[in-house]
């Protein structure tokens, strides 16, 4: 099985980073849920739902009849072996790919193709499986670019430094600085993004997505290629971000241990089809999932790699 996952429980994913909560965090316009989130989310209308999504490239079927619903405030994981169609799904949600069939419902509106250009305004932000930072900008400006869509001054005003342009720039950099602090990136604030180590670049991408305080955050393998320590750190950041900004998270991750500890519900894809969907406990015990995906792992309790 071509998957670099660890066995269940091999990693205790629910490692909190208490210092994150101790910090003063940027004031979010939407307050974090006070009451038990799970209860409130249970009967809320889905924030995002996919209905009958189908997508193919030439002869390759990337997605077939995929339905998915994501409730406000939950961390929704998507797992599956390589090539199962996980990234394609996120690309459909963010409008990078246009689905051949089906549609995406977002905040109640229905799209055949989600308008990528308006994504940020719709309150959706994402990260990419392969790093997609702006290498020629420093970390601060990379993160600030996440709210560049709010800029209202034009280039002439910016050149001459008149009107709202100065205030806008100060405001955007200020917000970016807060997020950098939140994710412990202040130390590399002025470094060119392309010169950072891989793990930090991944975190900067998360910062760029978070700075817009999105309602929906799509994370495509945010922990790929990280050490166990970095992974649990990242998991803590994701959870902290959700709790702080009341952001709904869709998360793709290969490390089953991390996923089980972090997510509220999990969907499993295999060859473009959704073969299971449920809570971590349900997924853990789903026979189809064990057969198709987790079989080897569950026999291999030590998580010695597959």
């Amino acid at each position, binding site marked *: 099985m071509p998957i670099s996952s660890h066995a269940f429980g091999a990693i205790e994913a629910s490692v909190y980073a208490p210092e994150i909560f101790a910090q003063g965090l940027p004031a979010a316009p939407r307050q974090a849920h006070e009451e038990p989130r799970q209860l409130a989310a249970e009967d809320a209308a889905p924030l995002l739902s996919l209905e009958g999504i189908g997508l193919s490239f030439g002869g390759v079927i990337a997605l077939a009849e995929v339905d998915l619903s994501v409730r406000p405030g939950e961390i929704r994981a998507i797992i599956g072996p390589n090539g199962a169609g996980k990234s394609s799904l996120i690309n459909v949600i963010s409008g*990078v790919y246009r689905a051949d069939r089906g549609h995406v419902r977002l905040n109640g509106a229905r799209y055949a193709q989600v308008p990528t250009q308006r994504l940020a305004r719709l309150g959706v932000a994402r990260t990419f499986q392969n790093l997609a930072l*702006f290498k020629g900008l420093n970390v601060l400006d990379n993160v600030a670019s996440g709210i560049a869509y709010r800029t209202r001054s034009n280039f002439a005003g910016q050149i001459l*430094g008149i009107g709202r342009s100065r205030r806008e720039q100060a405001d955007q950099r200020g917000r970016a600085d807060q997020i950098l602090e939140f994710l412990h990136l202040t130390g590399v604030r002025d470094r060119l993004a392309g010169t950072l180590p891989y793990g930090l670049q991944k975190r900067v991408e998360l910062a760029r997505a978070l700075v817009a305080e999105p309602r929906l955050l799509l994370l495509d393998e945010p922990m790929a290629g990280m050490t166990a320590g970095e992974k649990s750190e990242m998991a803590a950041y994701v959870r902290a971000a959700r709790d702080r900004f009341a952001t709904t998270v869709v998360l793709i991750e290969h490390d089953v241990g991390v996923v089980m500890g972090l997510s509220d519900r999990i969907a499993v894809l295999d060859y473009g089809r959704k073969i299971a969907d449920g809570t971590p406990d349900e997924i853990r015990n789903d026979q189809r999932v064990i057969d198709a995906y987790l079989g080897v792992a569950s026999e291999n309790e030590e998580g010695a790699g597959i």
Partner: protein
Amino acid sequence: MSAITTDLSATELSKGANLSSWLAPLIVVAFAYIVVPLIGGSYLFEAILLPFLALSLAGVGLNILTGYAGQVSLGSAAFMAAGAFAAYNFNLRVEGLPLVASIVLSGIVAAAIGIVFGLPSLRLRGFYLAVSTLAAQFFVQWALTKFSWFSNDSASGVIDAPKLCIAGFEFDGAVGRYLFALTVVVILTFLAYRLVSSQTGRNFIAIRDNEIAARIIGIPVLRTKLLAFAISSFIIGVAGVIWAFAYLRTVEPAGFDLDRSFQILFIIIIGGLASIRGAFLGAALIVVFPLALSRLGNFLLGDVFDSGVLDMSQRIVLGALIILFLILEPDGLVALWDRVRRRLLLAWQSS
């Protein structure tokens, strides 16, 4: 070209160097205004500084499009030509229009043409876009030669520059034209610098580095690309005006051929992509180097070679220079300059 650093982040890297980062350009500008006119002879102005200024400005313009926004253009000379001929016609046909106004208007004409020929960038990328910018090159050159209206019915499209008169002050002679060109270049370069360190400039870089990510975070990709074409063409157009009005005084469309476009491209490669300083360093090399080469040839070998041979050798050496830079110093003279300066600084501190 792999790790493009921007002037912006370079200045921010050396925090607190705010004063000194302004000091150096200020000293250079003061030197250019005060000392150079006193010591320079007419050869220096006519053969070196005037073409240097015009080409530097064109390099700044192309760098905004190619270095910052990542859209390769092979048609820069077309925008120089558009600027030069537009200024000529505004000056000729609109009674009493001040020179400054015709220069600005000619920049706007060049920008408009730039937007039209930038439209393919909305759908094409990389080589496909680069090749399609050749359309601008050939179309503009053809139109200026074909329709003699543009050159006021002169033979083979030749135009003569008007007097350079601003607010009653006449920029006369080599030094006068130098000061005129210098002023235009300083102003536009300052504005260009402000642009690339603004939000718009960062949007250019974002689109260059990762177009999909830029679109996802809501940067208006199409509008920003066209803006890059417009601003770049504006600056290159004004560079064309300087080329025609201050440097050569008499130009024809054939002077703005494909070789000129390549020359400007070479300037930014040799100087350093995505760097305002780079355009100046590159232009300096491109202007001085052939002169030095022919001097050297004459000195070493006397007059045995005709100009054709010299021309060819220059071509060869120029080509070799490009390749050498791409292999050895892909970030251009700017990177070299910065390295040398850092070394010197270190040596100075340790002694």
